[in-house]
């Protein structure tokens, strides 16, 4: 089996089969990553450009490692040193890069829709590494992978996503991915940070954390940014912590075999206490490990690979 598109722009509209294909492929790569020699020649001769218009540590390193472990040739580009500072348009920049013969572009940008825009001006395969508050599909996939790894099946699990839903691309990709895989998804956050009509995505919406957590299996905690306070959406981070912070005490409402996830970077003591972040139910670092395997799987499948890795 192959993926339908040569791009990965988002999880919205993907089929359960396609997602399972990516997750299954990632399992193989995860096994490879546990070997003493973690490099395979799968993408030898393929040139991948990492186009990061927004600061990123985790995602950029994860993609770069995934590419290198597949033996791809890697070029990194970040906006701070780019010609975008000299007034060149995005279209010109990417077409110039492609003119140097590249095959795949991994893009992170602060504006929603940029990965789609690139599919309109380039022939390369485009992988969305996060666009605005739209989608972050590889994060959504690695979250699914991590959940599936622990529970064997995503279907029927109750998953609560807590925090700044409005500005979170992770929340959107998680919502689509989890819904497609049959999980029961709830959202919880301050009413100013819940985007309008979000319930139409087929999720339950709460502003009372204690209610949202009852009987949940998985809690995905989102980073809360200081900018929200400046934008007037939150009176203070202190108040956010009091009402929405994930503390040990609040975990009593969860199912026994619960899991705590966070896409990072963490604001310790703000959205989550260190005790919970580092506790026995936290899989935050597993998410990071799985991220490399997921990105290897995506790169492999989008470059034309089929289900079985040679």
């Amino acid at each position, binding site marked *: 089996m192959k993926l339908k598109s040569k791009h990965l722009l988002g999880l919205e509209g993907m089929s359960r089969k396609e997602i399972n294909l990516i997750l299954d492929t990632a399992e193989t790569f995860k096994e490879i990553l546990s070997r003493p020699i973690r490099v395979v020649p799968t993408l030898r001769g393929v040139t991948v450009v990492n186009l990061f218009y927004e600061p990123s540590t985790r995602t950029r390193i994860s993609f770069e490692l995934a590419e290198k472990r597949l033996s791809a040739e890697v070029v990194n580009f970040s906006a701070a040193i780019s010609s975008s500072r000299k007034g060149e*348009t995005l279209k010109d920049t990417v077409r110039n890069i492609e003119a140097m013969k590249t095959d795949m572009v991994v893009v992170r*940008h602060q504006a929603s*829709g940029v990965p*789609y*825009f690139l599919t309109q001006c380039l022939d390369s395969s485009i992988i969305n590494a996060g666009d*605005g508050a*739209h989608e972050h599909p590889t994060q959504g996939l690695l979250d699914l992978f991590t959940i599936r790894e622990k529970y064997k099946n995503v279907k029927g699990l109750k998953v609560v996503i807590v925090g700044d839903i409005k500005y979170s691309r992770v929340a*959107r990709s998680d919502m689509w991915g989890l819904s497609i895989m049959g999980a029961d998804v709830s959202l919880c956050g301050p009413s100013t940070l819940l985007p*309008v009509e979000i319930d139409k*995505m087929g999720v339950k919406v709460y502003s009372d954390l204690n209610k949202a957590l009852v009987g949940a299996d998985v809690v995905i905690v989102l980073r809360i940014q200081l900018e929200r306070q400046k934008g007037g959406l939150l009176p203070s981070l202190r108040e956010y912590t009091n009402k929405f912070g994930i503390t040990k005490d609040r975990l009593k409402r969860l199912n026994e075999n619960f899991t705590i996830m966070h896409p990072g970077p963490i604001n310790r003591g703000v959205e989550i206490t260190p005790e919970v972040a580092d506790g026995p139910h936290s899989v935050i670092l597993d998410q990071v490990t799985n991220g490399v395997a997921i990105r290897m799987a995506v790169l492999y499948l989008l470059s034309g690979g089929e289900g079985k890795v040679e």
Partner: protein
Amino acid sequence: MNNSEKLKIPSPAGEEKKKSGSYFDLAIIGGRVIDPETKMDRMADIFIRDGVIIKVEKTKDKIKARKTIDAKGKIVVPGLIDMHTHLREPGREDEETIYTGSCAAVAGGFTSICCMPNTQPPIDNQETVKFVYQKAKDAKCKIYCVGCITKGQKGEELTEIYDLVRAGVVAISDDGLSIANSQVLRNALEYSRMFDLPVISHCEDLNLSACGVMHEGFVSTTLGMCGIPSIAEETIVARDIKLAEFTKARIHIAHVSTEGSVDLIRQAKKRGIKVTCEATPHHFTLTDQIIRTFDTNAKVNPPLRTKRDVEAIKRELSDGTIDCIATDHAPHSIEEKEVEFDAAPFGMVGLETALGLVVTELINKKVLSWAQAIAKMTVNPARILNLKAGRIKKNFPADITIIDPKASWIADPTKFQSKSKNSPFGGRKLRGKVCCTIVDGKVVYEG
């Protein structure tokens, strides 16, 4: 693409001119003539001399005119008036000039257009008005100038409105920017009342619309884009109506886009407040769903709203709450639009697709009759702006548009007369085509 016949324009009847003392410069014969003001809608012939309509009647006599247009099977209407056009001159002549805008206008059946004052520099003084009218002498249609309400469109100090009136502005507006200070707008309304000058208001609470790039709703939520909520428009519509009621002045609400706005205006009209409004073809045709493909040509302000809003706009066009159809023709260069959605400027061109959309979306879908639709593009804006235009009537200027109602065509922005091509309607099949546009008795466009 044009399925119908080309207009037959016989050569000048020179012999008749010699024989008879009384002849006409132009006769338009055999068409269905619609004059919304007099509710005329029947077969008639129109006779024109010296740029003026001399008579409108069905005649069996031999036509004595230097030029005759056979309008059989066509609809003959007063030349269309667009009360909301951006012409970009002075300042952005790379996007549109007064001349190219007028070419687009006549190709779209418009014989009069009103240029909004958000040029660079803005039209906020007599000299700039004179500059526009000087340039307008070479234009293919009539250009009317709208002046700024405040100096530099800053929303602070009133412009010299009497000066602007003497220079010939037909209305004032800070279009594109809403006047945030209610006291400034109150003063503008009270002051302009002296001249019976309409104040055109772009209603937008800039704090509520903030970083928004599209309608705030399910689609913006899905796409993770910053939204412009309906209330950004509606709160200011409500305020402006109150100010108009209080000052007893005339206010015209530009490009209404939401159900809430048209509800407010309907109620205000019922109470006898002097408020009028317009809607654009894109706001009665498209919804925010089109943004799913991140087409920056569909990025407009006010944004494309929901299906419910589109239905409300259509309903209130039909009920008469919405007086006019105006294009908000807003040219932008390709390089400005071929960028990230967030970075693209707001606006789309509309002069050359307006009539086709009116016919396809409103007339053919039985939302409006021909007479109702044409009224909103002719006599209604003429009344609001006190223009001697928009009628097919003796002694009125011979500004006339001839339409083939059945012709179907595909909108192709690359073929637009406008300098800019930023239209989301490319490839759309439209009905109703302009065959001929006549300004002051002269044929300025033949399609």
